[in-house]
């Protein structure tokens, strides 16, 4: 009995010594980050979470990821819980940029830095956010607009499938697309419907567009998300190769469709580097190099993918 105790005491002492030795070397060791994601069950976030966890583990950071289950009140209470736990940094991916502001102010008051990741927070009313790591959905929409011009030229009729109405991605991507199309008055949006980021709904809407507009009456169908890919395959199977399909995001099925030629192109918002970059910025903060973090936005590039370069890019998720 005593032997075991002595051994475990020795082991414990050794462990503490080891921890101290490594801990002295790196400032971020043992720091705690609370990360609130508005809804972790959205497939998009799985790679972001995976890369964030891996990067945190590599740097000895304790990362606690919590889901807001798509509900603003839950999101707020999770951030409040992080404040109560006095974590060293709070990361947020809120569903609404404005609705999250009051709780950011609470974190500011508690002197806990806040970083927005993937979805942004509104800083116009004085809430302090370290930086926003992610992509610019406005730019995402602009890239989609470029793809349209690339696909059909400067004149044509297009139908537009929206994501869930009122989500920040839906609003900003639409604004970005409109911004690009402003320069091309020959391109006309003749239809707009919302598919709520849902595959079955996007398919139904695509079918209705195809019924309404016979060959030659419509040049392209643009989807804010990747969900329209089944509609694109359906169109090809039914001989409607006259319509070009442009998606948003780059999961495996969209990649396959681009290779097959049923989808013309997409904009790749890769979630994985967002997870990695966010933690790397946190490491900079913890080691006193906060001035090296790009502010107010740390934007990650948005490559467009078409048949020409599809082979170089592995799918953003689902691979």
């Amino acid at each position, binding site marked *: 009995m005593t032997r075991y105790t002595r051994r475990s005491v020795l082991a414990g002492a050794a462990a503490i010594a080891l921890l101290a030795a490594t801990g002295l070397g790196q400032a971020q060791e043992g720091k705690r980050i609370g990360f609130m994601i508005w809804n972790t069950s959205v*497939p998009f976030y*799985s790679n972001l979470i995976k890369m964030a966890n891996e990067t945190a583990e590599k740097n000895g950071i304790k990362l606690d990821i919590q889901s807001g289950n798509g509900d603003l009140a839950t999101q707020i209470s999770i951030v409040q819980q992080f404040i109560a736990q006095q974590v060293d940094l709070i990361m947020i991916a809120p569903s609404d940029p404005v609705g999250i502001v009051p709780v950011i102010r609470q974190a500011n008051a508690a002197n806990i830095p806040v970083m927005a990741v993937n979805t942004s927070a509104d800083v116009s009313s004085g809430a302090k956010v370290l930086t926003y790591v992610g992509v610019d959905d406005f730019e995402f929409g602009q890239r989609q607009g470029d793809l349209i011009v690339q696909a059909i030229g400067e004149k044509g009729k297009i139908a537009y499938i929206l994501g869930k109405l009122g989500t920040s991605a839906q609003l900003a991507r639409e604004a970005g697309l409109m911004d690009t199309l402003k320069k091309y008055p020959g391109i006309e949006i003749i239809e707009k*419907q919302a598919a709520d980021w849902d595959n079955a709904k996007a*398919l139904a809407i695509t079918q209705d567009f195809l*019924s*309404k507009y016979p060959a030659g009456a419509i040049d392209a169908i643009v989807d804010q998300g990747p969900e329209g890919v089944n509609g694109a*395959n359906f169109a090809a199977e039914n001989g409607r190769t006259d319509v070009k399909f442009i998606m948003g995001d780059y999961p495996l*099925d969209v990649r396959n469709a681009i290779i097959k030629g049923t989808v013309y192109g997409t904009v790749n918002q890769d979630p994985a580097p967002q997870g990695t970059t966010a933690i790397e910025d946190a490491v900079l903060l913890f080691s006193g190099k906060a001035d090296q973090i790009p502010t107010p936005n740390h934007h990650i590039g948005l490559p467009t993918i078409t048949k020409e370069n599809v082979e170089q890019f592995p799918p953003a998720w689902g691979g």
Partner: protein
Amino acid sequence: MTPTDGSIANARREEQGSRWESLAAYALPIIFVALLVVFCLTVPHFATWANFANVLQRNSIIGIVACGMLLMIITGGFDLSVGAVGAMSSVVAAALIVHLSMPLGIATALLLGLAVGILNGFFIAKVGMNPFVTTLATQVLVTGFLFVGTSAQPVYGVPESFTVLGLGRIGPIPIPTLIFAAVALVTWAILRFTTLGHYIYIVGGNKTAARLAGINVDRVILAAYALGGLFAAIAGIVLLGQTNIGQPASAADWPLTAIAAVVVGGVPLSGGVGQVWSAVLGTLLLGIIANALNLLGVSPFWQPAVTGAVIIVAVGLDSYQRKQRELR
């Protein structure tokens, strides 16, 4: 006035009354046909077989779910877990099809759906929990397990040939619609010809009376929920055939859409009554309205409002007519 005249007038009034009553009982089919005619005449591109085939194909999934929902509603309950079961079925089938084999994937998905249905039935019938609470709990439970099992990642890699099940056609008829028709036919046969079907009506009408009449009420409720779970799993497989990915977050709107389809078809949530054609017509009614709104290019902001108004009007008409009949 002579007494004879009076009695004749009375008889005539009664005759008219019963004619009106039988007309009112068919309010939904009449509304459906009227709308169909109006849409055919006014909505461009509506009256083409290609469009009808699309509408049938995409509403078959909800139709299959609605058939199961009907059985549960007749027993006086309903099931909020059908969406979770559908998502589970499509995810499990996708994973097994990718890694093992297609028949095994489909069979396992259907068995799991049946199992969740039996679980629902067990808690409602044997434990005596409220259907709302029970099925809400299983919905959350199943969704949770799905997210744990998949990290919310869709399952990719189902061979493209599988889309035949969701998008294929035999002649002019979409295959999902044939599956829907088969499910509706089975539901009709159960309600019409089997003892179980008759018991479902009796249990839904009055549980105590059914128990006193010697009916094993628990077993009837268990069977209804088991069938509901099985049908939801079938719908999940068809969904996989349409999207070709097993998506854990999909099908979230099935429970309420299926309940809406059944009640729009004129089945009261109080239980004891209901026919299969109500579920079928209710599904198709909501389906053609959504289709017509898309074809007319109605703004996506307005669409939910129109659907809500349709549900209120259809169910309102039916309830009012039912209430009048009870007062008489």
